[in-house]
């Protein structure tokens, strides 16, 4: 389809606020759900197609041009380092990358953690952060339950994404420092941005306006 816009959306926590955003931006969202077996939703009359996928796949879909646009967290974008346009800070889904240590180490200074083992789902972010501090650490990539790693002795500290910090507290971990803050972003394939500029540009304007007003107030 020549002028159809394909937008990759994240399953999970981000889906609900994303659907609110789409409605506020005047895009269709009837029946979009991650509970159905259907992962592609087409609205022919609006020229819109959504792909519902895992957050970590969104930048890949957009970079390859399988989707023109994507709505995904900065945390995923920065870890994946794909060649995409990052167009709008949508404001919702706020979280932070933090370095956290077991409570017993809570008074430790960052530089005393040189050469230690760091468990994380985000090896690039972790590696880049410690290198920027002039430190070397052994990064251990895990796929989930990062907060368990120090308890069972797989790692000395962790780099993880937190929103409230509740999970850290429950596992007797304390935040040592914040690496960066993250919110949800609108991203675009660089070629789509040019070949479908007339459709994407107005959407960018609308989403910028909505983000300024705060997406939570839109529902």
């Amino acid at each position, binding site marked *: 389809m020549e002028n159809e816009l394909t937008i990759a959306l994240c399953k999970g926590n981000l889906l609900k606020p994303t659907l609110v955003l789409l409605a506020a931006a005047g895009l269709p969202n009837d029946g979009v759900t991650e509970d159905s077996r259907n992962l592609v939703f087409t609205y022919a009359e609006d020229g819109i197609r959504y792909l519902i996928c895992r957050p970590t796949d969104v930048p890949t879909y957009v970079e390859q041009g399988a989707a023109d646009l994507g709505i995904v967290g900065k945390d995923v974008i920065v870890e994946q380092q794909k060649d995409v346009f*990052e167009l709008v800070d949508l404001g919702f889904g706020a979280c932070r990358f933090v370095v956290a240590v077991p409570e017993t180490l809570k008074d430790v200074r960052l530089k005393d953690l040189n050469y230690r083992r760091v468990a994380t789902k985000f090896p690039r972010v972790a590696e880049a952060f410690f290198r920027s501090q002039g430190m070397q650490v052994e990064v251990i990539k895990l796929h989930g339950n990062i907060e368990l790693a120090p308890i069972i002795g797989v790692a000395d500290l962790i780099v993880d994404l937190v929103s409230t910090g509740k999970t850290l507290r429950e596992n007797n971990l304390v935040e040592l420092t914040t690496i960066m803050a993250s919110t949800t972003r609108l991203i675009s394939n660089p070629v789509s941005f040019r070949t479908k500029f007339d459709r994407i540009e107005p959407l960018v304007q609308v989403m910028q306006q909505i983000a300024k007003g705060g997406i939570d107030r839109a529902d």
Partner: protein
Amino acid sequence: MKNKEIPKGLRDFLPEDVKARRKMEEKALKLFRSYGYEEVSTPTFEYLEVIEARTGRNSWEELYLFIDREGRILSLRPEMTVAIARGAATHLREAVFPQRLCYIANVFRHVQPQKAQYREFWQMGIELLGASGARADAEVINIAVETLRTMGLDNFKISLNQIAIFNSLLDDSGLEEEEKRLVRRLVENKDLVELGRVLNNAKIEDDLKEIIAKLPVLHGGIEVLDRLGPVEQNRRAAQAVAELGKVYEDLKAYGVNEHIVIDMGVLRGLDYYTGIVFEGYSSELGYGLLGGGRYDNLLQQYGFPCPATGFAIGMDRLALVLKEPDEEPVRLLVGGTNWELMVEKARELREQGYIVETDVEQCTREELAAKAATKGNCRVVFIE
């Protein structure tokens, strides 16, 4: 059994693939020649000191480096422009300019292999040496358009920019050196969110902030130059804007402007570009098809100051968007019982312009018919 892996990001080209590539090459060469461009070829690898003139985003990480037995560092060529600049500075000092050169070559970059991105890939392109001015740029851009048209593409756009607009505004912005580097990196990485944030906190005039933030997404017909805002205070930027307008005007004579858009986000990421730059996109592929521009200071690095402009097309990407190949020519499979007659018949048919295979296995008519059925448009000629 021997290992039969091939290095990551490399490919074997089977007859179908090579046929498609040769077809692209023939069409392009014919077009380039018709504009007076002559084909050149340069070494597959060069000294690193030569290749080093190519600086910019990821340029170092992408090189395939090795050492020769005299201990000098060599690099597989990552592109052709630098090699042609080096060669021109050696061989063309006495030439009458402008010189029009073209090439078809495999180039090598250590990139993450994925769709439309390989570690050995094929480029064809042209370089117009020794001509400055808008008409030289217009000629090169027109040939880029013509090349894509010749390949049968119609749904494509060429994004046009003059990088001195962005560079001059940034140079004279009053930002700290560190901030300038950051702004440049954010614009190259297309991170407009962070760019907006950095500019917001910068201590420069609001007008200027607005222009720099707007440039990467300023896109449209020639009228976008009017939306640029007040750049007149910056003499070099204003000149660059005027030059962009001039190239756009000069392109009109070729009748290709339906394919041209002004796009201030095109910066190309390589430091050797000095003026007009452009990229080509098809709406059928999420990656750029071609890129080029003016590099007036590159030859000077090899001791021969000379203005230049050119472009290269990624042939592997182009192949992904081309339509079905033309119909297969007729192939004949000559068999029979008398070898002399078979060879004679095959020669006759070849002279008539057919593609002729001769049976070397003494097959029966039925066996040959079965073989012919596995090939496209193939018929058996059997001599009793």
